[in-house]
């Protein structure tokens, strides 16, 4: 892998130059507690300190609502609405979210590639950013705390700048076209990088492996430890909407008032909603709140063959953004009766 | 042989809310307005609730004037809890209020009143022959809607306006757009004024009457704290109970207002009668050109007055939008938990009074007097005179009399929903 360094003095120049490669999206503080990614005009707005955003980066690839077709009802013709997608840059994605995106790739770019997703994926440049965990993070358990592929550049914080990993031809191109911004990595930098990584590992609240979770989960699905948690849940779907790998969507046709034309739209759905498993005639495959509640645990802990991980990337979003204070990880740990380690 | 007729329509179309009229003609002529819409007891509903929840309920009294029914109780609560909001918030509220005024007036004129003048049962059938009229009217309406959605979150039941300010203050760029739109629709509004100057008022309903209107803070507007009357009295809103009384009649769920024991009128006409000297700009020119249409003794002048107000308020909104300075602002939290307060504003249909008493953040008492409840008895008199006039003139066709009678009613722009919410004084 190619490594370069950028110093703190040049970082804002770098961000400014990123705009040459497309619209720049980066995390900004949107309210007292929350961050979200927005289009950036003033690069000094960017919140480097952010840990998680209210909406995961998936929103740039699978829009919360998007038009798929314009339909001429009378003629029975479908016109796909693939807007012209301009290149864009997402700055500051953490490792877990980049893995999350690769999981989405596995789903959207399989045997039946989804063109709406693909086009955006092709247009997006991803610049990763290192992070320090808070008490909600457990990507060390899901082994998604470090990524090797899936980004163009990845910035690791150093005391005086960033160590940059170059992860794709596009990444190389950006470095090559802006050589004035970058310098070689020296021994001090490597030491600092090592120290950062060590400190980061120290900070994780939980230790151990997650690999057998899916078996334990399967065996405890009937367990009553779930009951209390189910009772607390609102069924509001915040957990799935803020999850970087949740991808369920619903499709609806919206006809015009004269009944001649319609648009087909798709929008984020959630397995926490009753309609998700409801079929014609009234049977519901996930008829109770418990079914729906557990479905998410089941789905997130299933094995994703494409990457050899589970569908959960350990970002902690679902816990952080659950208005009912339901702690996803604690619940899993409870059924696993793993003891809390360090900082617990 | 005695000739007797009666006109009965249990459900009058093209008014807001549900009411019937019953006119008896013959030797004795009488007219009654039966408000058949069920009572909804807003004063009772809001009792015991937190003041912010209560002001969220109040707009549901009436959709046409849901903004007045939001901003007036907000003001009453703020007076009670001694909350002082910034000038900016006051200005924004005024823009919001005027946006509602413009929309309410134009909808009333376009959908309810004008079809009468042109002889159509509704605006839809009118559109076929007068598409231009409908188009310019809807443009004015969309202007009002835009403002209310921008500042209030929606045009019916605006949730963004709260006690102490706004949830979020809109960005400045939208206000430039308001100014732009205002410029474009001003001539539409002038055309509406001119429409009404092509008709003469029926003289049967000429009658000297008392008009009550607000004494506006600055210029011709909707905010103030004093009420003026035609017999030259000016009183503070907190004394409203001494001057305005409400009664119940057995044929109606609505309360009925009296001033000094007599029916009176409120609304656009009353406002212009009292405050025309504050009108400026294009509206002033129009008003001086068509002076003879501003007749205090004839209710039909109310439609004309509404049209004049549309012009005036569009210009006023433009002026406000151009001078407003936008900055983020937190909602002002009250320092007191208990208190009593009153507020009065000029809703599209006339004076709207709210009185509240709050204890520990909960509403202890709320009283609402709506314009329709105030002018209901006056409207009955005008209806009777209309029927009487026509009858004595020799018209015996009850359908025709009925139509004319309804026209009188629509001239007032009554809002039945408003009138039926009530609690005893």
């Amino acid at each position: 892998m190619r490594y370069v360094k950028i110093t703190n003095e040049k970082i804002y120049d770098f961000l400014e130059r990123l705009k040459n490669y497309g619209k720049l999206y980066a995390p900004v503080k949107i309210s007292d507690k929350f961050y979200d990614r927005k289009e950036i005009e003033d690069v000094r707005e960017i919140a480097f300190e952010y840990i998680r955003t209210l909406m995961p980066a998936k929103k740039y690839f699978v829009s919360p609502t998007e038009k798929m077709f314009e339909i001429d009802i009378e003629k029975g013709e479908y016109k796909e609405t693939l807007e012209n997608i301009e290149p864009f840059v997402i700055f500051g994605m953490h490792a877990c979210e980049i893995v999350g995106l690769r999981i989405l790739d596995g789903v959207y770019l399989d045997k039946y590639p989804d063109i709406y997703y693909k086009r955006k994926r092709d247009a997006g440049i991803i610049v990763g950013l290192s992070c320090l965990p808070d008490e909600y993070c457990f990507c060390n358990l899901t082994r998604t705390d470090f990524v090797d592929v899936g980004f163009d550049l990845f910035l690791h914080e150093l005391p005086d700048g960033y160590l940059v990993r170059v992860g794709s031809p596009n990444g190389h191109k950006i470095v090559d076209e802006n050589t004035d911004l970058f310098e070689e990595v020296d021994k001090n930098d490597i030491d600092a990088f090592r120290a950062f990584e060590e400190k980061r590992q120290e900070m994780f609240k939980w230790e151990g492996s997650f690999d057998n979770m899916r078996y334990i989960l399967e065996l405890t699905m009937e367990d009553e430890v779930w009951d209390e948690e189910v009772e607390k849940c609102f069924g509001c779907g915040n957990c799935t909407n803020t999850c970087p790998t949740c991808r369920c969507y619903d499709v609806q046709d919206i006809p015009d008032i004269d009944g001649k034309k319609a648009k087909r739209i798709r929008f984020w759905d959630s397995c926490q909603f009753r309609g998700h498993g409801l079929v014609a005639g009234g049977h519901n495959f996930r008829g109770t709140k418990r079914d729906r509640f557990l479905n998410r645990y089941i789905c997130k802990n299933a094995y994703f063959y494409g990457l050899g991980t589970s569908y959960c990337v350990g970002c902690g979003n679902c816990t952080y953004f659950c208005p009912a204070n339901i702690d996803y990880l604690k619940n899993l740990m409870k059924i696993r009766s793993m003891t809390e380690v360090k900082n617990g | 042989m005695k000739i007797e007729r009666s006109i009965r329509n249990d459900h009058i179309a093209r008014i807001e809310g549900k009411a019937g009229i019953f006119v008896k003609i013959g030797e004795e002529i009488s007219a009654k307005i039966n408000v058949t819409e069920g009572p909804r007891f807003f004063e009772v509903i809001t009792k015991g609730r937190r003041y912010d929840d209560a002001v969220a309920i109040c707009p549901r009294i009436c959709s046409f004037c849901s903004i007045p029914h939001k901003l007036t109780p907000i003001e009453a609560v703020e007076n009670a809890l001694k909350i002082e909001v910034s000038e900016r918030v006051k200005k924004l509220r005024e823009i919001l209020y005027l946006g509602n005024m413009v929309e309410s007036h134009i909808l009333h004129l376009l959908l309810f009143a004008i079809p009468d003048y042109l002889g159509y049962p509704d605006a839809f059938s009118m559109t076929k022959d007068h598409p231009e009229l409908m188009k310019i009217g809807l443009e004015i309406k969309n202007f009002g809607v835009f403002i209310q959605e921008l500042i209030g979150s929606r045009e019916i039941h605006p949730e963004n306006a709260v006690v102490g300010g706004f949830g979020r203050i809109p960005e400045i760029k939208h206000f430039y757009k308001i100014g732009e739109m205002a410029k474009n629709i001003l001539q539409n509004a002038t055309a509406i004024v001119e429409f009404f100057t092509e008709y003469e008022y029926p003289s049967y309903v000429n009658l000297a009457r008392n008009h009550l209107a607000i004494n506006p803070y600055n210029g011709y507007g909707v905010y103030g704290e004093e009420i003026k009357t035609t017999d030259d009295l000016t009183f503070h809103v907190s004394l409203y109970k001494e001057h305005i009384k409400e009664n119940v009649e057995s044929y109606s769920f609505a309360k009925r207002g009296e001033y000094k024991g007599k029916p009176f009128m409120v609304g656009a006409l009353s406002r212009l009668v009292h405050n025309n000297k504050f009108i400026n700009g294009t509206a002033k020119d129009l008003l001086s050109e068509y002076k003879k249409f501003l007749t205090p003794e004839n209710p039909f002048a109310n439609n004309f007055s509404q049209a004049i107000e549309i012009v005036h308020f569009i210009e006023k909104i433009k002026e406000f939008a151009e001078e407003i300075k936008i900055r983020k602002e937190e909602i002002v939290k009250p320092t007191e938990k208990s208190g009593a307060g009153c507020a009065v504003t000029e809703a599209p249909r006339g004076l709207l009074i709210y009185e509240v008493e709050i204890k520990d953040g909960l509403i202890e008492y709320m009283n609402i007097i709506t314009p329709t409840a105030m002018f209901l008895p006056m409207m009955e008199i005008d209806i009777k005179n209309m029927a009487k006039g026509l009858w004595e003139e020799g018209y015996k066709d009850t359908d025709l009399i009925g139509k004319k009678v309804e026209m009188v009613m629509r001239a007032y722009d009554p809002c039945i929903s408003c009138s039926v919410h009530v609690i005893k004084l």
Partner: protein
Amino acid sequence: MSLKIGVHGLTSCYGCQLKMASVKEIINIARNFDIKYWYMISSKGEIEHVDIAFVEGSVTTKEDERELKIIRENADILVAVGSCAIHGGVQGILFGEEYEKAFKEVYGDKKIEYEAEISHPIKNFVEVDYNLPGCPPEEDEIIYYLATFALGSYPEEKDYPVCSECRRNGYPCVLIEKNDCCLGPLTVAGCNARCLKYGISCIGCRGALEEIAWFDSLAKTFKEKNMGEEYVKSRMEIFGKQYEKMEEMLKKVFENED
């Protein structure tokens, strides 16, 4: 051939009809549908047979009830429009004794010719085919409902809470952040989280989700945030008073484990 529709208001603020009348496409609605009666807008027409009747408002008088039945008899499809028609509306808060007391307080012993009663949702009297929720309904939903009827089909009603739309739009959650008493998790989506856009917590104006409004779970969270029973209840009942299990669900939360 265009569908025959009728629009009718019982007791309400008339906001749903006003909203229907003021949608941008109103002229197109008039063009594509045969409006047989709509008292608020037109003096032509009596209640007659229509394909679809839209009914706004709750039943608060015998007269309302009588009219409603006539409307139902004359309509193939009946759509309840807005919170009053669907759940009884804000006026539905006064229920049972509270109502009797209020009536007396207002009208004293005076006799009114018309009989008034508690505000009921219309489903208590007639069969309702579809609900068009909102206080008032949203423009896009009004169009969507009409358009699907025009296609000879019917609308898919939303079955998930406001939170979904709040999140899809990326509005900060006021329940988490400010400990506000947000009723989004209970409330039928469709408004595109209009209030949350302004940082104002949801008051539940679109009504609670049928069967999946978890008043208990939400109340539990509110309780943990130190909100009292009185307040939580008084807020939830503004639009939810006539929701069958609400009181029971709240009682469960507030009585337990004190």
